[in-house]
């Protein structure tokens, strides 16, 4: 798993936010579109793509997309 690929997969969960907005440093909870449903989508994406799922606290403890990537990487 690579960071860039994860960022692309992460970005594709969003409908309104342009994919170009997303970098490893994006503070995703500040995005207008962020919601609890999106958190579930991100978790389901992780399960589908990488075979591991996030817990509620994992997403809460992450600030940037890279934070989340590191949490996921530690679960692999």
């Amino acid at each position, binding site marked *: 798993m690579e960071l860039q690929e994860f960022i692309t997969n992460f970005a594709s969960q969003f409908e309104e936010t342009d994919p170009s907005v997303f970098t490893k440093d994006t503070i995703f909870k500040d995005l207008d579109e962020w919601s*609890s*449903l999106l*958190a*579930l*989508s991100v*978790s*389901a*994406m992780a*399960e*589908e793509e990488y075979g591991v*799922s*996030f*817990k*509620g*606290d994992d*997403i*809460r403890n992450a600030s940037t997309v890279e934070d989340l990537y590191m949490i996921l990487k530690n679960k692999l």
Partner: protein
Amino acid sequence: MYNPFSLSGKTILVTGASSGIGKATAIECSKLGANVIITGRSRERLNETFSELESEGHTQVIADLCETNSLQKLVSEIKSIDGIVHSAGITKNIPFQFATIDKLSEVMNLNFFAPTELTRLLVKSKKINKGGSIVFISSVSGVLCSAPASSVYSASKGALNGLIKGIALDLAPRGIRVNSVIPGVVETNIFEDGVISEEQLEENKRMYPLKRFGKPNEIAHGVIYLLSDASAWVTGSNLLIDGGLTLQ
């Protein structure tokens, strides 16, 4: 002492008895005089429930209701019963675009196919006594409303809702009643492994006019009404216990 909700002399099968609503229901049934047959997958946790049952004469059977052999073994160990409480079930929070047939099957197998088949086998082998009562733990979700990422769970409970009405008609000539309880969110460990955060749960609680989730006992008491002779003229119904959630 006068008690129209007494379960004295009745034998009640409770599935999913190792935790949550099933556990509370099994314990409350025993307190109201029933002989209880409890079943669950985890030996350790089922034993915990068993040790909390009041008085003697109860039975525990380890069973995985999704496995045909296990299901048949459970049915073969039952002689005759007066009530069934189907409380084995899982929740699943998954946005619809990820709801593959695999995910759907996992939920439908436990929430819909397993209780359906268990009921069918017990009916076919004539092990449910006349005057018996079958209670499904369903949900407001899928019957009256749904929630974000709940399509799969709602579908399983919606399927039960239709099933219950059909079975109620088919079993009425045998004097067997079939009903469901439809709770709002109940505080059980069903959420412990979930992706839902504490903050989100607190926010959800505020949606309830009574400002909290239900307690397992509060659902168990509705189940007991439906098991007892107090509800002798009630069949095919959904008993709503939701803290006012679906009022608005």
